[in-house]
């Protein structure tokens, strides 16, 4: 035969890819439109207000900035990479301390009603306090900026962890605990086989909330304490009146926060369990 005819499989593959491409285009259309609108509004504002650089100059500044993210010209002139890492390190430290204290506390509060009665009014009272209000106390206690910032992160991270863990323990279905009682499981077995897996999704929600708050708070705390970190860098650039860098800092903070949130969301999905 002289006319070439595609095999059905080839046709199917082609239509599969066409379908796939369409799906991706449809999924990207919304976000893409959003970003284009943002750039337009930004450009319009920069044309009106001379002090604010438009998207073009800002991207140029970002390109220069990220050419050498890890330079080190002494403690007051560090690359942007070092500043981001410094902030992340504080968040990690504060969060780990909060988890080490908060998770056992959450389990205990959820399991023992008496402990819940004692602690819940205190938690209700202290939770709405802005974490930055604890910063002076941290400075007083630790006599140094860095531990004070970690202390502030610790305080703001601990509430969601305690509250969600305790809530998870309270929501462990009574049926599962009845199973444990009928089988005479040891307290350790109950914890390992029933409480921990049942509470894990709640706990991961608590962790996600606490790291989200911690990332909000660290920027503000570093503005006050100075030294290193993305918050300090932002404030430093304000003192230098480098508005392009301030805008870049805002994007960096947003991107890092979003990445953390998405990573924890994926982790939460991995450990969630459904009955059906």
């Amino acid at each position, binding site marked *: 035969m002289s006319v070439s005819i595609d095999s059905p499989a080839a046709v199917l593959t082609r239509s599969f890819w066409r379908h796939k491409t369409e799906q991706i285009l449809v999924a990207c259309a919304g976000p893409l439109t959003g970003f284009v609108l943002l750039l337009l509004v930004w450009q319009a504002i920069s044309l009106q207000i001379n002090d604010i650089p438009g998207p073009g100059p800002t991207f140029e500044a970002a390109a220069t900035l990220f050419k050498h993210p890890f330079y080190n010209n002494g403690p007051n002139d560090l690359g942007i990479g070092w500043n981001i890492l410094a902030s992340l390190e504080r968040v990690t430290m504060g969060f780990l301390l909060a988890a080490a204290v908060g998770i056992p506390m959450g389990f205990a509060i959820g399991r023992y009603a008496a402990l819940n009665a004692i602690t819940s009014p205190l938690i209700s009272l202290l939770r709405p306090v802005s974490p930055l209000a604890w910063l002076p106390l941290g400075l007083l206690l630790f006599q140094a900026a860095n531990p004070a910032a970690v202390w502030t992160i610790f305080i703001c991270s601990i509430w969601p962890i305690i509250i969600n863990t305790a809530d998870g323990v309270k929501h462990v279905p009574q049926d599962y605990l009845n199973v444990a*009682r009928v089988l*005479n499981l040891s307290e350790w077995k109950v914890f390992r086989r029933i409480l921990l897996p049942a509470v894990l999704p709640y706990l991961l929600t608590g962790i996600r909330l606490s790291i989200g708050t911690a990332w909000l708070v660290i920027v503000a705390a570093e503005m006050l304490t100075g030294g290193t970190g993305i918050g300090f860098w932002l404030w430093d650039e304000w003192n230098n009146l480098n508005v392009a860098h301030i805008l870049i800092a805002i994007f960096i903070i947003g991107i890092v926060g979003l990445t953390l949130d998405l990573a924890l969301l994926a982790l939460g999905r991995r450990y969630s369990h459904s009955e059906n």
Partner: protein
Amino acid sequence: MEKFVSIEYVGQTFTSRKGAFVALQDINLSIHQGEFISLIGHSGCGKSTLLNLIAGITRPTVGVLLCAGKEISGPGPDRAVVFQNHSLLPWLTCFHNVYLAVESVFSATEPVNQLKERTIAALNLVGLGHAEQKFPKEISGGMKQRVGIARALAIEPKVLLMDEPFGALDSLTRAHLQDELLHIVAATRTTTVMVTHDVDEAVLLSDRIVMLSNGPAATIGEILEVPLARPRHRVALANHPDYLARRAAVVNFLHQRHRNPNAATVNPPADTDLTLDHLSTEDA
């Protein structure tokens, strides 16, 4: 036959914000070894409460419960429970759900490979050897309930307690599991107490049917002997006069003498009751 489970003058009162609520009153019942007992009654009559008392999950306000001569002071593996909603742990496979139970009872006296053998044997008993590595969400409702039964039987309980074990299943699956339960109980000779609201289920499976009056302050209204020969076969019994007579007695108790307090006031003629295909206490 000796008394194996003994319930003496048991009453249960719940205290709520609205005041005291007497759920059960003056319950007296003796259960023999190897006997199959059904507890039947309308919703809210306290049949599950009574089962929880035997399980030891709740403690009676008055009276005592004995099992094998000892007072029931709390839950224990000698009285295994099959829960209404199966209560399998969703993060464990079928194998590990059963193994958790086996391990808790036999790990002090038996090596690990023997524990595994017991687990496999229990799953094979309910015909689920092939599904041992599946998670509960990957199997059907009927299979979940069979795993629940396997978990209960694997620990070789003195008494098997079942709280409406087939209530959530479709009628074909339910019939299938009832037949399997007949085989299992015949093979293991386990003393069984089952809560049900299904008249056919009660008559087919039981040696005696304990009928509870309506709450509050529910008590045993009547105990019906079901002296039908075993092994019993659903199809052969369907039109058997002895079977129909027992069934009629239960229906009469539930729908004439102790009508569902929550049901509409329309009163069907007595003879139409028996012509309904499927009777349950929920649809009076």
